[in-house]
C-alpha cells in the first residue's frame, strides 16, 4: 500500500503535453500575429459557399432573378431561401453566417484585447495589427447588419462563465460601431508604416498583398453608407443619408489610386488589376477543383455538375449593343436570334446555345422531331447536373478551366472593386441631386469600358435610377451583389417572386427555335415584405430567455 500511495501523482500523470498555452501565444510576437491572421479565415470569401454537404456550391445570386441552382436538395442552402423559409435549418446564409461572423468577431476581439501586452519587436507594428483586426471586425459586423439589421455588439470576447443571452443593439448603434472601427483602422492605415512591409502610400508589399489598407476601409464605409441610405434603412428618404453615401464613394474616386480594368471579360481572372481595391487572394483553382468541377462545369465539359444557371430574366436585362433595352421596339432585338448584338458584357458573362466555347459549339437544344427525342450534349432533360435554363456563367468559368483537368485558373473573389464604387457614387448622387453630370460621367465610364454607348441624355431621376439599377445587375452580375441590392432597394416583393424563366431551344431543320418558358415550380420563388431583413436563427431565439428579439414578421 505504501508503494501505491507513494507514487500516486506520477502514476496517473499520463496526459500528452500541450503544444502551446494561451499565455505563450501572446508572449511571442510571431505566435500572436499568427493568431491575428486567423481572423481572415472567418470572412465570407468565395462565390460558391452555401451548400451544407458541398460548401463550394451555391451563391446568393441564386436567391434572385439572376440565376437558379439546378439541384433541388434543401441542404444546398438555396431552396429554403427561394421558398421564403429563412428559418429553415438549411438556410445557411442565415444560420451559418450568423455563427461564423461571431466566431470571427471573437478572434478579432481576443487579438485586440491582447495587442498591447504582446512584447512586439521592431519588426512588427502592432498598430497595423490593430487596424487589420478592427477592419475585419467591421467586415464581420457589416455581413451581419446587411442581413439582420441591428445585432448584438461585442467589443470584447465573452467569458465562458457569463451569460451569452444578450439583447440586440439597434440598427443605428450597429452602423455606428462599424463606422467607428473603420475610422480608427483607416487612420492607422493612412499614417502608420512598417519598414518596407507597409507604407501608407504603397500599401502592403508583394508578399502581404491581399491584406486590407486605406482603400478597403473607405470602400467598406462607402458600401455600408449606401446600404444605410437605401430604402430599407431610409424609409423617409433622408437626402442627408444619400449625401453621406455619395461622399464616401467619392472619396475613393478622389484617391486617384484605382482605375477600371481595361478588359471586362478578364476582370476576375487576373492576378492583379488597378480596379481591385481588395480581393481574396487564394491559389489558382484547378479545373477539377471542387468549385469548378462540382458547381460551375457541367458533365458535357468534363465537370460533374453545372449548377449555376443564369435565368432568362437576367439575360433579358442585357441591352442591345446600341444601348437600347430589348423591350424597346426600336432596339432591333430578334426573339428568334436573341443573342445577336447584345451588350458585350452578355458575351463575357453568359454561356448560351450555339456559342463557341472551349473550341466547340455549345449544344443546349432538344430535337423533338425524332422519336425518341434527341438532345444536344450540353443539355439533358432529366438531369439536374446540366443547366435547367440553357445558360451557364462564363464570368465564373475561365475558359481555360476544363472539367476534370488539373490545369489551374485564376478566379478571384473580389470584395471591392473600383467599378462598383463608380456605380455606388452615381446611384447615391442621383438620389441626392438627380441625374447631374457626375452621375452620367461615372455610369458612362463603366459602360464605355464594357464597349457600350453612354446613357441617353435627358433622363429623369426615376429613369436614371432604373438605368443604374439595371447597370448594376449587368455590370456586377454573379459577383454577389444582386441579392443585397434587391434587399436594400426593398424591391424583393417586386422582383423575387417574378416567374423565373428559362429558354427552350428546339432544334429543327432550319436552325433553332427559341421560346422562353417558365421553370418548374421548384425553381420559383416566394418573397414577402418582411423578408428584406433576415430572421435571427431560430435556435438562437430558442436559446434566449426572451431577451433576444426576432425581426418583425418572422
Amino acid at each position, binding site marked *: 500500500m505504501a508503494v501505491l500511495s507513494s507514487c500516486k501523482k506520477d502514476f496517473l500523470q*499520463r496526459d500528452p503535453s500541450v503544444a502551446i498555452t494561451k499565455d505563450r501565444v501572446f508572449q511571442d510576437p510571431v505566435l500572436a500575429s499568427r493568431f491575428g491572421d*486567423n481572423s481572415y479565415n472567418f470572412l465570407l470569401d468565395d462565390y460558391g459557399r452555401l451548400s451544407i454537404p458541398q460548401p463550394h456550391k451555391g451563391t446568393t445570386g441564386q436567391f434572385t432573378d439572376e440565376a437558379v441552382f439546378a439541384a433541388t436538395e434543401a441542404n444546398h442552402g438555396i431552396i429554403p431561401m427561394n421558398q421564403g423559409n429563412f428559418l429553415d435549418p438549411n438556410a445557411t446564409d442565415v444560420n451559418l453566417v450568423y455563427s461564423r461572423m461571431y466566431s470571427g468577431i471573437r478572434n478579432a476581439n481576443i487579438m485586440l484585447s491582447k495587442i498591447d501586452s504582446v512584447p512586439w519587436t521592431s519588426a512588427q507594428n502592432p498598430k497595423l495589427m490593430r487596424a487589420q483586426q478592427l477592419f475585419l471586425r467591421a467586415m464581420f459586423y457589416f455581413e451581419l447588419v446587411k442581413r439582420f439589421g441591428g445585432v448584438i455588439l461585442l467589443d470584447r470576447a465573452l467569458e465562458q462563465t457569463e451569460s451569452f443571452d444578450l439583447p440586440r443593439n439597434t440598427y443605428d448603434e450597429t452602423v455606428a460601431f462599424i463606422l467607428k472601427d473603420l475610422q480608427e483602422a483607416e487612420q492607422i492605415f493612412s499614417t502608420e508604416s512598417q519598414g518596407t512591409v507597409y507604407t501608407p502610400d504603397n500599401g502592403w508589399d508583394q508578399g502581404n498583398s491581399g491584406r486590407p489598407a486605406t482603400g478597403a476601409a473607405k470602400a467598406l464605409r462607402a458600401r455600408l453608407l449606401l446600404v444605410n441610405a437605401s430604402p430599407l434603412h431610409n424609409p423617409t428618404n433622408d437626402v442627408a443619408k444619400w449625401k453621406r453615401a455619395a461622399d464616401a464613394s467619392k472619396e475613393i474616386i478622389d484617391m486617384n489610386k484605382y482605375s477600371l480594368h481595361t478588359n471586362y471579360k478578364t476582370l476576375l481572372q487576373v492576378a492583379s488589376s488597378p480596379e481591385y481595391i481588395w480581393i481574396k487572394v487564394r491559389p489558382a483553382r484547378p479545373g477539377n477543383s471542387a468549385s469548378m468541377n462540382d458547381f460551375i462545369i457541367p458533365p458535357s465539359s468534363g465537370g460533374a455538375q453545372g449548377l449555376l444557371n443564369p435565368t432568362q430574366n437576367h439575360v433579358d436585362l442585357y441591352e442591345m449593343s446600341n444601348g437600347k433595352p430589348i423591350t424597346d421596339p426600336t432596339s432591333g432585338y430578334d426573339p428568334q436570334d436573341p443573342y445577336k448584338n447584345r451588350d458585350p458584357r452578355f458575351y463575357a458573362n453568359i454561356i448560351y446555345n450555339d456559342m463557341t466555347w472551349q473550341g466547340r459549339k455549345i449544344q443546349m437544344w432538344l430535337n423533338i422531331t425524332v422519336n425518341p427525342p434527341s438532345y444536344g450534349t450540353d443539355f439533358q432533360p432529366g438531369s439536374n447536373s446540366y443547366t435547367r435554363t440553357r445558360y451557364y456563367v462564363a464570368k465564373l468559368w475561365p475558359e481555360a478551366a476544363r472539367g476534370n483537368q488539373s490545369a489551374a485558373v485564376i478566379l478571384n473573389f473580389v470584395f471591392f472593386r473600383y467599378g462598383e464604387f463608380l456605380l455606388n457614387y452615381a446611384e447615391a448622387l442621383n438620389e441626392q441631386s438627380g441625374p447631374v453630370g457626375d452621375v452620367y460621367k461615372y455610369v458612362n465610364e463603366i459602360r464605355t469600358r464594357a464597349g457600350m454607348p453612354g446613357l441617353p441624355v435627358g433622363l429623369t431621376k426615376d429613369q436614371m435610377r432604373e438605368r443604374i439599377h439595371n447597370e448594376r445587375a449587368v455590370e456586377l452580375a454573379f459577383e454577389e451583389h444582386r441579392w443585397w441590392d434587391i434587399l436594400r432597394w426593398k424591391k424583393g416583393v417586386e422582383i423575387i417572386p417574378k416567374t423565373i424563366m428559362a429558354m427552350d431551344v428546339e432544334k429543327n431543320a432550319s436552325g433553332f427555335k427559341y421560346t422562353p418558358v417558365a421553370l418548374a415550380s421548384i425553381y420559383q420563388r416566394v418573397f414577402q415584405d418582411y423578408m428584406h431583413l433576415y430572421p435571427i436563427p431560430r435556435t438562437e*431565439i430558442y436559446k434566449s430567455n426572451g431577451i433576444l428579439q426576432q425581426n418583425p414578421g418572422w
Partner: protein
Amino acid sequence: MLAAFTLCLCISATAQTSRINGKVISTENNQPLPGVSVSIKGTTRGSTTNRSGDFSVVANSEAILVFSYTGFETTELPARGIIDSVTILLSPNPGDMNSVVVIGYGTQKKKEQTAAISTINGKDIVKSPVSNVTNSLVGRVPGLFAQQKSGRAGMSASDIAIRGRASTNSAALIIVDGVERQTFGDIDPNEIESISVLKDASSTALFGIKGANGVIIVTTKVGKTGKPKVSYSGNVGRVNFTQVPQFLSGYEAAMLHNEGENNLIKNGLAPSTYQKLFTDEDIEIYKNGTGDPLLYPSVNWFEAITKPNWLRTQHNLNFTGGSRAIKYFVSLGYLYEDGGFKNFSTPSGYKTNPSYTRYNFRSNLDFNLTPSTVISLRVGGRLENRYSFQANGGQGDLRQRFETGPEYLMTRLYSIPSYAIPFFPEYTNPTTPEMQELDDTYNQIEDFGRLGVNTFNPYAVIKRNGYVNYDNNAIESIFMLDQKLDKLIRGLGVKVTFGYDAYIAAARAQGGAYASYNVDKATKTLVNARATFEDPLGGVASQNYGYIKTNLQVALNYNRVFGNHTVTGVFVGQRELRGADGAEAPFANEGLVLRLTYNYAGKYFFEVNGAYNGSENYPKNNRYGLFPAVSAGWTISEESFMKSIYWLNHLKIRGSYGLIGYGSVGGTRFLYLDEYSNGGDNPTNGGANSIPNRRVAFGSASSNVLYPVVWHSRAGNPEVTWEKSVKRNVGLEAAFLNNRLSIKADLFDERRYDILLARNNSASVIYGEVLPSSNYGENYNSGYEVELSFRNSDGPFKYGITAQYTHAKNRVVKTDEPINLPANLKMTGRSIGQFMGYQVIGFYKDADDIANSPTAAVAGTVMPGDLKYADIAGSSDGKPDGIINDQDRMPIGYSDVPQNVFGFEPSISYKNFTLSALIQGVSKVHSNVFFSGGNYYESMLGRWTPETAATATWPAMRPRATTNPSYSFNDFIMQDASYVKLRNVEFGYTLPLPLTQRLKMESIRIYVNGQNLYTWTKFVGLDPENNQTSAVATSFFAGAANSIPVSRIFNFGINVQF
C-alpha cells in the same frame, strides 16, 4: 464452515442396525460428488461422501437419509427400500442459499447478500450455440438488456446494458477472474464457471469511477480435487439469417418505378420532357418475362451472393482434476464460423466468403504450497482469425476496413433494384478461359443507366475488390498469491493479484480494381465504363496493433465469527495501466477498495462498500473520487416467530444506497487540457469560404505566400470530472414450498448527474467558439425486475420454469438544448434516444386536399398519395402555423432501447432426457430501419393509387432515390421493433451409465439445440434486433453497422467425459 464443524461431530456418534453403502452422482455432469452430507433425518448422525462419491452409513430401516450439498437440491430417501447399495442423483440448485456467488474482489454466500446481483451458470451458457458469449446472456439474467445487432461471423457480439441506460454510454464494466478486461465475448463458453451481473450501488461501488453502468464478472473454471477428468464437447451447426428483406422481382420493381415516374409527371413534379427509365414496352417485356436477361435483368442480389445456410462448429477438450497440492483446469477450444456469403472462385485466388476461426486456450492452476498458502495461475489465450472480402476499401485503418466491409456492401446492395444489374450465375466459378472472359465482363456490368452514382456490382466487389484478414492474439494471465495470516491475526489473509495481458493484432489486406461495363442497348455489346481493367490485386498492406496491460491488486481479507457476530472485511489497493494503440497515452487508474460486512445470527446484515479511486483522465488536483455505498438485509424467515410458517422457507428484504462514478465517457480524453496550435493545413484550392485554422494566403493567385496561423485547438475545462450516479435498490427474496417456488424482486432507480456535455446547443453562438465539455447533464432511470422460479426435482420426472421480467425507463432531466425549445422538440423529460419525427394523419387525397392542408415544407414537393403530417407547432406561441416543417417534429414511438425485456425458461427432464427452452422478448422499442428510398420492397406493393386510396398501406410511388416527402422520418415509416423470440431450445439425452461404462467412459450426452429459432414480430426488413439508434432519421438505411441480419443456428452436439 459451521456445517463442516457440525459434520465432524456427527461422525463420532454411531449406532446399530444395517449398513448402507452408496454413491452420489451429480446430474449436472454425471460425476461422483465428494463431500456430500448424508444424514439421518431427525438425528445428528450421518456421514459424508469420499472423493469417489461413495458413502457408507449405518441406519435402521425406519430412517430417512438426507443428502445435502451446497449448490444442490437436498434429496431425501427412505432407508427401507435400500437393499445393499444405492446410487443417488443430486441436481444442482442455483437458487440454493448456501451457494457462493462471485462478487467484486471476492465471493459471498447467497444468503449473506444485501446487493442486487444475478448469476448465470456455465452450464446455461453452453446451451446457446453462439460464437460470442455475450449472446448467450440474452434473456437469462434479470436486469440485463442484451441485443445481438449483427449476424456477421466473428462480429456478432451483443450490446449489453444493465438495467437500461442512464447515460449515452451504457457499456458495463467487464471483469474476468478479478481483472478488468475489454471484452468477454471471445472466451470459450466451456471455460466459464459463472457470470455474475452486479447491478446496484452496493455491488458496484467497489469499482468506483468505473462502476456506474454495472459490472459483469466472469469467472473461469478451476480444477477440483479428484482424479483427472477429461471431457470433450463438440458440436456442429447450420446457420442462416433470421429475417431478410423481401425484394421485388425485376418486373414488379420496374413497374413501380415506372408508376413513380408517371406520378411525378402527372402531378407536375417533373417536366413533360422528362425521360423515363422504362418505356411501356419495356414494362410489357418484363411482365411477359421474355426479355433478354442482359437488358431486362431480374436479380435478387441478396440471394445471389449470400448462402441459404452455412456451417458453424465448435470443439472443446478440457482436463481437470487435482490433489492436495495442485488443482488444474486446462482447456483447448476451437471454433469455426463460416460467413454467410457464397464462395466464388476469384481470379486472384482469394476466398470471397468471410469466416471466423478461433482457438482458445486456458490453463488455470492452483498450487497449495502450504496449508495456508495458495499460488494460482490463470492463463487464457486466444488466437482469432477474422477474414472478409473487402468492400469498403477507402478506410486507411485496415481494422476499420475490415469492420465495415460486408456491412457497407450490404447497405449498397439493399438499394439495388432487381432490374438494375444483370447477373449470370452460370459464368461464376469459371473453369475455362472463355468462361472467365464471360464472367469478367457480363458479371461486371456496373452502370446500366438504371442506378445512379455511388453504386456498384456486388458480385464484382466480392470477386475483385480484394480481401482483409484480421488476426487477433490475446494472452490474458493472472498470478495470485493467497496467504492466510491466521497466525498473525486469526481470520486475516492477504492476496496479491497481478494481471498481465498482451494483445497483438494484425490486419492484412490486398485491394483490387476491376473493369466495369455499360451495356449498349442497341447492339447488346458491352462498353468499358471505367478505365481500369482486370488488375491483379495490389500489394499487401499490413498494419499491426497491440498493447500491454498490467494490473496489480494487494488485498487484505478478514473473516471471523464471534458467536452470533460474523465480521468480514476486504481492503484492496489496486492499480492498472492499459496501453493504447499508437502514440496515444496509456489508460491508468488506481485506488483503494474497502468492504466491511457484519451479520448477526444470519438475520441482520450490514455492508459498507466503497472505493477511493482515480483515473489519468482528470486534472491533477481532481483525479480521485470517493464512492461509498451502504446496504442492509433482514432475513425475516430466520426469526423465531417465522419458523412455524412451514410453507415459507426463506424471506428476506434488503436495500442499498450509494454513489458510483463513470469516467470513461466519450472518445476525447484529457478534456481539462487547454491548448493552442501553431501552423495549420494549407487552404484548399477548390473554392468555398476559407476554413478557420488554416494558413492564410496573401500575395497573389499566381504567387502566394501562406501565412501560418495560431488557434485555440482545445478548449479545456479545468473543472472536468466524471459522471456520478446515485443508485437505490430495494429487494425482496422469498422461497416457498420446500424451496420449490422462489421469487426475487428488485425495485431500483438511478440518478445520473454531472454528465459531460458541451453547451453547444444551449448556449448562444455569439460566444464565437466551441465550448468545452462540462459536467451538467442529468438523467433519471428507474424500474423493477422480477424473477419467479418453480422447480420440482422429486422423482424421475423433473420440471421447472423460470420467468423474469425487467422494466426500466429513463428520462432526460437536464441536457444540452435551448431553454425555450418548443415542447414538441424538447428531449428534456423524454427517454434517452427518443425518436423524433412527424406524426402521420393520413394520405393526401388529391390536389384539393393538398391545397386545403397546411403548407408542406418538408424535403420534396408533396403530391396526392403522400403522407400528410400533422401541423402541431411552429408559431411563436407554440400553436400550429399552417406550415409543416421541422418545427412540427415531435416524439414518436419509443427509443431504440426497449423498456421491457422478459425471458421465460421452461425445462423438463425425465430420467436421462432433458428438454429446455428459452423464450425471450422485448417491448416498447422502435427502430428507424426502414426500407424505402433506394429500392423496391414487398411492402411497397400496397402503395397508394387513386384507385386503392382506401386500402393503401404505403405512400404513392416515386422513382427510387428521388427526394420523397413521405420518407421524412415519421411514425408511419418508423418500425415497432418489439419481438418475442424462441431464443434457445435444447433437447439432450444422457446415455445410460452401464452403456457408458462399457464404453470405458464416465458419461456421454448427446443433444440438439438451436438459437434464435423463431421470431414473432411486426418488424419487416431485417431482424428486429438489427434496429438502429435514433441518431440518423431520414436516410434510406441509417448507418452501416447493423446491416447484416441476425443469424439462426440449428446445432447438434455431444459431450463425453473420460
